C-alpha cells in the first residue's frame, strides 16, 4: 500500500508541480523514486514531525499541495497541535499520510501502533479522513486527494494489501461484495479479512455484504440510513480503538434515525497491546480474529431473538 501510494503520488506530481512530499526521516525504500525525480519538491526535514507539518502548512498557504509522510502515530499524535492549528484551523491543503494503520507495525510495539488516529483526526473541523482498504482504494483516493480542498488525513497500511475490483468514490462507502442479510462494514486494513469472512458466511448460507468505509469523514450517512431503514444488521470491523472510529461513526448516524438496528462492533478494546508478534498475531489477541464465526453467532442471536 505504501508503494502504491508513492507511485500514485509520483504520477500525479508529474502533471502537477504544486505537489510536494515531506518526511521526518521516514520512507526508506519507498520514497526514493519521488526524491530522485522531484528533488526540488522533496524534503527530509529531519526527525522533527512538528516542523514537517508546520512547513507543509506554510507551503499550502502559498498555493502548494504538500504531503507529510511518516508512521501514523508520529504523523497524527506527535504533531497534533500543528495538525489542529496549522492544517485544520487554517483550512490549509496539507495532506497527512500516516502509514502503519492499526497493528501494521505489530512487532515494533505500541509506540508504533495506530489505534486512536481515526478518532482524533475525525474530531478536527475541516479535516477529511480516508483509510483505504485495498490498492484500488489507495490509488483512487490518492488521485482524489490532489483536488480536495482543505486538509486531509490518509491512513495507509503497510503489509501487502490486496486489490479488489470495485467502484471507489471519496465520501461514499464502497460495495465490494453484494449481499442482503447483514452488512459487514470495514475500514482501512480490515477489508481483506472482511472480504474472506463474507465469502465464508455466504458458503454457510448467510448472505453478507462486504462494504468498505474508506472515507470516514465526510461519512456516508446515506448508506447507513438505508441499511437501518431496511432493517439490515450491521457489523463494524476496524483495526482501531472501539472509541471514536468506524463503530462510532456508524452508531452516531444510526441513532439519529430513531429506528432500532443491531450493530456488532469488532474493534480493539480500549486497551494498549503489550503482546509481541506479527500484525496477524496481535490482531487475534486484541479482539480482531475469528470474524466469520463471530458474525455468524451474531446473526444467529438475532434470529432467535436473544439480546
Amino acid at each position: 500500500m505504501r508503494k502504491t501510494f508513492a507511485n500514485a503520488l509520483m504520477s500525479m506530481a508529474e502533471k502537477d508541480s504544486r505537489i510536494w512530499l515531506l518526511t521526518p526521516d521516514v520512507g526508506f525504500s519507498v520514497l526514493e523514486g519521488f526524491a530522485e525525480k522531484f528533488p526540488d519538491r522533496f524534503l527530509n526535514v529531519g526527525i522533527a514531525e512538528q516542523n514537517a507539518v508546520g512547513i507543509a502548512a506554510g507551503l499550502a498557504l502559498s498555493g502548494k499541495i504538500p504531503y507529510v509522510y511518516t508512521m501514523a502515530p508520529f504523523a497524527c499524535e506527535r504533531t497534533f497541535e500543528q495538525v489542529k492549528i496549522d492544517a485544520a484551523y487554517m483550512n490549509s491543503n496539507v495532506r497527512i499520510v500516516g502509514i502503519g494503520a492499526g497493528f501494521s507495525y505489530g512487532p515494533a510495539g505500541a509506540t508504533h501502533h495506530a489505534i486512536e488516529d481515526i478518532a482524533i483526526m475525525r474530531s478536527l473541523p475541516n479535516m477529511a479522513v480516508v483509510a483505504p482498504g485495498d490498492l484500488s482504494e489507495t490509488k483512487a483516493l490518492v488521485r482524489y486527494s490532489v483536488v480536495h480542498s482543505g486538509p486531509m488525513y490518509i491512513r495507509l497500511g503497510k503489509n501487502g494489501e490486496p486489490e479488489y475490483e470495485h467502484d471507489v468514490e471519496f465520501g461514499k462507502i464502497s460495495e465490494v461484495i453484494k449481499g442482503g442479510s447483514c452488512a459487514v462494514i470495514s475500514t482501512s486494513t480490515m477489508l481483506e479479512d472482511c472480504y474472506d469472512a463474507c465469502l465464508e458466511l455466504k458458503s454457510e448460507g448467510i448472505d453478507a455484504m462486504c462494504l468498505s468505509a474508506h472515507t470516514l469523514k465526510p461519512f456516508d450517512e446515506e448508506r447507513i440510513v438505508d441499511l437501518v431503514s431496511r432493517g439490515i444488521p450491521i457489523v463494524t470491523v476496524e483495526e482501531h480503538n472501539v472509541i471514536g472510529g468506524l463503530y462510532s461513526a456508524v452508531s452516531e448516524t444510526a441513532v439519529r434515525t430513531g429506528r432500532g438496528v443491531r450493530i456488532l462492533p469488532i474493534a480493539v478494546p480500549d486497551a494498549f497491546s503489550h503482546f509481541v508478534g506479527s500484525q496477524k498475531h496481535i490482531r487475534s489477541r486484541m479482539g480482531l480474529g475469528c470474524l466469520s464465526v463471530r458474525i455468524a453467532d451474531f446473526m444467529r442471536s438475532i434470529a432467535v431473538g436473544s439480546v
Partner: protein
Amino acid sequence: MFDENDRNVLRTIRADMLRMVHRTHASHIGSALSVVDALYCIYSRVADINKDNIRGFDRDRVILSKGHASIALYAVLANLGLMDKARLEEYYSDGGTLPAHLDMNAAEGVDCSAGSLGHGLPIAIGMALANPKRRVFVILGDGEMDEGSVWEGILFLSKHHLSNLHILIDFNGLQGSDKVCDVVDFSRLGEILQGFSLDCKEVDGHDLNQIEDALRAGGDMAHALILRTVKGKGVSFMENRLEWHYKSPDDSQLDAALKELGV
C-alpha cells in the same frame, strides 16, 4: 529614514492599543508595546504588502508568531490603511471580529493564525520555500524560544539557507511567569543561532532605523534579528513590569498613559 511623522503615527498606534485593552480588560498590553515598533517598521517600509497585493500570494508575508500581541498587529494594519480602522472597536467583544489571538480569517493582512507558541517559524519556512522571490518575516517572543518546535525550525535552517526568511526575536527579557534569564540561559543566543548558520544581528528593537537597516542587509543565509526591547515600552509604569503581561489599565491608568504619550 524614519522621522517625526512616523513617531507620531506610532504614538497613535500605542494609544489605540491602550484604549483597546482598557475597553475590553484584555491582557498582553506589555507584549504588544514591546513588539509594535518592529511591526510598524516592517509594514510601513520594509515588506512589499499593500492594499493592491494583500489578497494574493505574490507578496511578502508577515507572521506574528507571538499571537498574544495581536493588538499591535491590528493597530498597525489599521493605522497604515491596510484594515478599516473602525474594526479596532470590534476587538475582543461579543459579536466582534478581532479575537485576542490571531485568526487568519479575521482580516486580510493576518497571514497566519497564532496563539499557541512555537508554530510560526516552521510555517514561515514553508512560505519561504514556496516563494523564494518573496520575503517572509516571522516574529517570535523571547519566551517562545523555549518551544521545541522553534528549534526544529532552526535546525532545518542549518542546512536550508533561506535568505528570504527573516526571523525577528522580541527580546524583552520577561515571559509569562518569570524573567527569561531565570528560566533558560539565552545569553549566548546570537552565537548559538550563528552556529546553526543563521545570519544573526542584534539591534535596539525600538529604533526604527536600526531595525530597517538590519532587515535590508543582504546575505545568503536565513536572517535572525534579536530585538533588544522593553516590555511595556512607551508607558513608564508598564515598562519592565511582569504584571502588564496580564493586567489592563483602569480609567486613571489609561489617562496617565495617554498623557505620557502626548495624545
